[in-house]
C-alpha cells in the first residue's frame, strides 16, 4: 500500500501492490510570474486510477497538464521538477515534448473532436501524424479503439460519413477517448472528463474507465468527490492556501483518504466544510 504522505510531501515510498508508472517529484508550475503549484510529488500507479481532487483553483488541472508537458504550451507558462516515466525524466533537457505527448495521452474537460473530420478520421488523427499505415490497418485500429471506448455499436454505420461533432456530448467524449486509445499511450490523463456531461453519460464513462484500467494507467482530475471515491484506487488532495500556491496535502489509497484521512484539511474538504 502506498503510504499516505503528510504535508509537505517530499518522498514517495516504493510500491508494493502497484508499480509506479509515472513518478512526479517536486513539480512546480508558473503562469508568467505567478506560481500556481509548488513542489507536488506523487505517483501514478500502473493499471490503476489515480484521482486528484481539491477545490477550484487548487492547481489540480495545472498539475496534470505538467504530466504531459501541455502546461508549457500556454504562452509564458513554465514548469520545474522531474516527472519520471519508466525511469526517464520527461523534463530532461534533451526530451522533445512532442514525443512525451505521444505516450502520455489526454482527454479534456470539454469534448473536442475535430469538426472538419469524420468520426473515423478523428479516431485515426494521431496515427495519421506518423503516416505509414495502410487504410486497412487504420480501420482495424480505429474499430478496436471504438470498441474499447464503448462507442463502436453507436457509430459503426456512420463513422465514415458523419462529422465528429454530429454526436451527443457523451458520445463526443467517448470519441475523444477512442482517439487517445488509438495511439496506445502509456498513460492516459483525464482533466475533469465528465464535468460537461449529464449523469448518464458520466456513468458510462466511469464504467469505461473501470474497464480501461485493466490495460492502461489512468490519472483523473475531478471536482466531484463522489466520482473520485467511486472510480479511483488512489487519491491525491490538493489545496491552495494563503500564498495562493497549490500544494499536495495528502496522497494515499482512496479508501483511506475518504474514511480516515490523516490531515484535518483533507477531512474538512471530504466532509464538505469548504470547497
Amino acid at each position, binding site marked *: 500500500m502506498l503510504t499516505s504522505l503528510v504535508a509537505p510531501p517530499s518522498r514517495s515510498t516504493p510500491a508494493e501492490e502497484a508499480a509506479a508508472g509515472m513518478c512526479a517529484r517536486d513539480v512546480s508550475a508558473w503562469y508568467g510570474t505567478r506560481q500556481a503549484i509548488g513542489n507536488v510529488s506523487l505517483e501514478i500507479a500502473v493499471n490503476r486510477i489515480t484521482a486528484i481532487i481539491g477545490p477550484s483553483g487548487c492547481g489540480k488541472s495545472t498539475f496534470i497538464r505538467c504530466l504531459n508537458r501541455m502546461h508549457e504550451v500556454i504562452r509564458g507558462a513554465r514548469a520545474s521538477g522531474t516527472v519520471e516515466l*519508466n525511469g*526517464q525524466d520527461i523534463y530532461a533537457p534533451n*526530451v522533445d515534448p512532442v514525443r512525451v505527448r*505521444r505516450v502520455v495521452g489526454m482527454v479534456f474537460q470539454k469534448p473536442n473532436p475535430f469538426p472538419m473530420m469524420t468520426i473515423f478520421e478523428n479516431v485515426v488523427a494521431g496515427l495519421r501524424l*506518423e503516416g505509414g499505415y495502410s487504410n486497412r490497418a487504420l480501420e482495424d485500429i480505429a474499430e478496436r479503439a471504438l470498441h474499447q471506448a464503448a462507442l463502436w455499436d453507436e457509430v459503426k454505420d456512420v463513422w465514415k460519413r458523419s462529422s465528429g461533432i454530429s454526436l451527443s456530448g457523451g458520445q463526443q467524449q467517448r470519441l475523444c477517448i477512442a482517439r487517445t486509445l488509438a495511439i496506445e499511450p*502509456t498513460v492516459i490523463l483525464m482533466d475533469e472528463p465528465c464535468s460537461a456531461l449529464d449523469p448518464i453519460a458520466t456513468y458510462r464513462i466511469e464504467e469505461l474507465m473501470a474497464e480501461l484500467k485493466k*490495460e492502461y494507467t489512468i490519472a483523473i482530475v475531478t471536482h466531484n468527490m463522489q466520482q473520485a471515491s467511486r472510480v479511483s484506487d488512489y487519491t491525491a488532495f490538493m489545496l491552495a492556501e494563503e500564498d495562493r500556491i497549490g500544494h499536495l496535502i495528502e496522497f494515499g489509497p482512496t479508501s483511506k483518504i475518504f474514511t480516515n484521512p490523516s490531515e484535518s484539511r483533507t477531512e474538512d474538504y471530504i466532509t464538505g466544510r469548504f470547497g
Partner: protein
Amino acid sequence: MIASRSVGLAGVPTRGWLRRRTTNGLAAGLVVLSAAGAVAVLLIILGHVLVQGLPSLNPAFFTERPLPPGEAGGGVAPAILGTLEMLAVAGVIGIPVGVATAIYLSEYGRGSLARVISFTIDLIAGLPSIVIGVFVWAWLVRNVVGQYSGLAGGVALAIIMIPILTRTVEETLRIVPDPLREASLALGIPRWKTILRVVLPTAQAGVITAVVLSLARAGGETAPLLLTALGNQFFNLDLLQPTAALPIQIYNYARSPYPDWQAKAWGGALVLITLIGVLSALTRWTIARRSRAH
C-alpha cells in the same frame, strides 16, 4: 516497469520523425520569413519616400504655388490648401451623418431598418473609391454644378468617410457600458439627453479618434478627387471651381517628364504620409493618456 504498455519514452515510434521535425522547422522558417518580408517591404517603401522626398522640403514648398517647368522653386501650397478645404466640406457633411448613423445603430437599432442600414454601410465601405468618384462626377460635375469643383471633391470624400466613421463610432458607443445608460435613465433623464450628455462624452476619445482617422484616410484618396476636383495650379477658395489637392498634385508631378517636378512628387508624398502618421500617432497617444488618467 509498466507491464502492459512497454512503449516508454525512449521507445516512442520514430517512424518519419526526422521528416516531421524538418517540416516543422521549415514551416516556422517560412512563416517568420513572411512576416519579416512584409515588414521589410514597409520599411523600404517608407525609406524611399523619406530619402527621395526630404531634399524637396523647404519653406517655399509649403507656401508657394507650382511654377512652370524649368523655373526652379515653387511649391504645393495650393494643393495643401485645397486638401484642407475639401476635407472641411467632407467633415461638415460626413461627421454629422456618420455620428448620427452610428448613434442610431448603437442606441436605437433593432429591426429591419437597422439591419438594412448596417448592411448598406458595409457595402458602401467596400465600394472602390473610383466608383464613388464616378458617381459624384456623373451627379455633380456633369449635371448639378456643371464643372469640376472643390465642392464635388468634398462630397466624394464625405461619401468615403461616412462608412468608416460610422463603423468606428458605433463600436466605440457600444463599448460604453449599459449600466451607465440605465443609471441615467433611472434618474429620469430623457433618452436623448442620456445619449448626448452621458454616452457621447464617455465615448469622446474614441469618437474623436474615429473622426480624425477617417479624415486622414479620406485625405489620402486620389481617384475620386481626380474625377471631381480635377486639380488646380493656383490657390483657389471658390469651391465651385476646380481645386487642387495634395494627392492629385503628387500624381501630376510624378507623371511629368521634369526631374524637378518628380522630386517634388516625392516631397508631396513625404508630407502626405507624415500628416497621416502624425495624426494617427497623436490620436492614439491622446487616447492612451486619457485612459491612463482614468
